[in-house]
């Protein structure tokens, strides 16, 4: 990617050095600690997602990497070099903003060429590279339009082209799909992932939407209160959450309170969930891991009454009230048997895979 005329200095020679390394970053706003010794590493060419609810510090971390904020402590390294003293306009970091922040008074072509002009690249080369960048995001022919004449999805592609044309080392995306409607969002997520992977750019992506994180990422960093709760692949974060918080935040979860002893927790259906913990625990049961079937009133075992049900396309979702008053969400593919289960019916519950359940200490 890096050519002789590349605006950014070439990458360090160290082979395995991570592109972005953050060590113990701290940021406080008026006494409130937003980043609390936060550390993470992004490898060459990976899409890393910062996932968390609002106020968890994900955007603050992103803004520190971009240079819009200066951390109160810790290190931010890009290609092994300390980035904190580097001014915003000299960082090899491209930001796609939530609002896209396209310059409304400039055409698509001038928007995309803006960074090259600021770097004093000759006009003919600007023209060539802008055309190439617009082709990359399939916006050839839109050069003379103004941002307000474009749809939300097109605006987003201009925002991406505008940073891609500079061939940054790191691409930062701050909730870029928020302004799009639900249907377009899904399409754009896949397109964006394919584009970033094709170009091989290292990207850090901020979102509060767990589905978006699962779609887009190579690895997900789940953030909570200024720290990283878990940093792993989407599958691992979903299947083996590091904490009850992660289990609750990523994917829908049921929590069942039980007592662990001798390396296992026994669920009401008789199956045991293996655990290293002892004493009171909360067991995470994914809704799709719970089996449901109609039950007679006299049968023993794990029983409940259906309190609510809804069709979610091909799936059925039930809310089952257990005898102890707790409720359990169950999701299953719709079939003839399930279609018969209605609100108020008594059902028998079971576990599809006990190994997929995880026990957490009860706080």
């Amino acid at each position, binding site marked *: 990617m890096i050519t002789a005329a590349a*605006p950014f200095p070439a990458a360090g020679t160290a082979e395995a050095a991570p592109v972005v390394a953050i060590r113990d970053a701290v940021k406080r706003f008026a006494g409130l600690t937003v980043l609390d010794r936060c550390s993470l590493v992004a490898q060459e060419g990976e899409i890393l997602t910062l996932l968390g609810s609002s106020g968890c510090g994900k955007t603050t971390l992103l803004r520190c990497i*971009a*240079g*819009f904020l200066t951390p109160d402590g810790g290190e931010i390294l890009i290609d092994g070099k300390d980035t904190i003293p580097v001014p*915003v*306009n*000299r*960082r090899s*970091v*491209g*930001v796609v*903003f*939530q*609002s896209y*922040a*396209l*310059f*409304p*008074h*400039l055409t698509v072509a001038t928007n995309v060429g*803006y*960074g090259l002009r*600021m*770097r004093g690249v000759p006009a003919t080369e600007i023209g060539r590279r802008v055309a190439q960048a617009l082709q990359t995001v399939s916006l050839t022919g839109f050069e003379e339009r*103004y*941002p*307000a*004449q474009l749809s939300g999805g097109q605006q987003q592609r201009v925002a991406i082209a*505008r*940073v891609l044309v*500079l061939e940054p080392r790191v691409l930062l995306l701050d909730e870029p799909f928020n302004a799009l409607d639900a249907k377009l969002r899904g399409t754009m997520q896949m397109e964006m992932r394919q584009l970033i992977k094709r170009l091989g750019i290292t990207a850090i992506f901020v979102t509060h939407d767990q589905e978006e994180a699962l779609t887009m990422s190579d690895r997900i960093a789940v953030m909570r209160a200024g720290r990283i709760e878990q940093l792993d692949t989407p599958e691992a974060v979903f299947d083996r959450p590091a904490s009850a918080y992660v289990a609750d935040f990523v994917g829908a979860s049921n929590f069942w309170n039980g007592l662990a002893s001798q390396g296992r927790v026994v669920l009401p259906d008789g199956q045991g969930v293996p655990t290293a913990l002892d004493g009171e625990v909360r067991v995470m049961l994914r809704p799709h891991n719970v089996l449901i079937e109609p039950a007679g009133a006299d049968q023993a075992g794990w029983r409940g009454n259906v309190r609510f049900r809804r069709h979610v396309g091909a799936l059925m979702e039930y809310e089952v009230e257990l005898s102890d008053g707790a409720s359990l969400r169950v999701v299953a593919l719709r079939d003839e048997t399930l279609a018969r289960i209605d609100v108020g019916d008594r059902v028998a519950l079971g576990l599809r895979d006990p190994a997929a359940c995880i026990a957490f200490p009860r706080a």
Partner: protein
Amino acid sequence: MTRRPLLLRLVDELLSGRGIWPAVPAIVVLVVVAVIPFGVLLSLGFSDIVVSRGVIVSQELSLRHLTTALADPLYHTTFRRSLTLALTTTFFCSLLGFPVAYLFLIGGPWVRRIILVLTIAPILTSGIVRTYAWIVILGGRGVVNATLMEFGLISQPLRIINTHWAVLIGMVQIHLPIMILPLIAVMSRHDSRLEEASANLGASRLATLRTIILPLSVPGLGTGAALVFTLSYTTFVVPQLLGGGNYLNAATMVYEQVVYSLEWSKGAVTAMILMATCLAVLLVFAWLTHIGTRWTRVAQR
């Protein structure tokens, strides 16, 4: 249904928001205080009037006043002076107002609050009071001269008051808020991320100011400039007080013709020339703003 009283139905129509009804009260007021007086002004300026014992005896259509005025060198000097004064005032207000608005844009909540208070507070004081304050400051024994003499920079008081400079200083100070407020209104409407985006793309602060903030401020500059120009071109308080009574601009000329020499027809003609030239300059401003904001209209297509 019984017929409702006319007055109630009229009020209903006024409040309905349909057609021109809601604008009717404003139109009535405008006709009474602007359109009719303007007609009277036209009739005075374009006629020969013979008055006897306070009553108009005869009135005939005539272009005499207009042609005399246009040929009069005094008019040329006066209007050139007015125009120069108003344009310089507009220029300095833009030059001084833009940084304040920029500071408002990049400043924190406290900076913004202070700027707003400092900008609006002077407007709440009467222009005459503020102008008198300038007499105190710029006078022979005023603050400026006293300070300069205290530090030994000058041995004799500078003659500032009753000069062109005093008028210009007063004009700029009086009209500065009128420039700042529309600038702030326009500039704070834009996404604050634009500056970050610009920096992220490699622009220095100066480059961002020049390529992003300034072009986006054109509508505010246009509005501010039009307001400042209109007000400073037609004011007579500041030139009258700070110019020492012998500083004649177009507005003071109208004032003297109407109040002192009682030449109403002459005054009417002067006022019309004042208005026409003012509109001409405003058209130029509007045209410049139009060029600078082409993108806002292209975008709507």
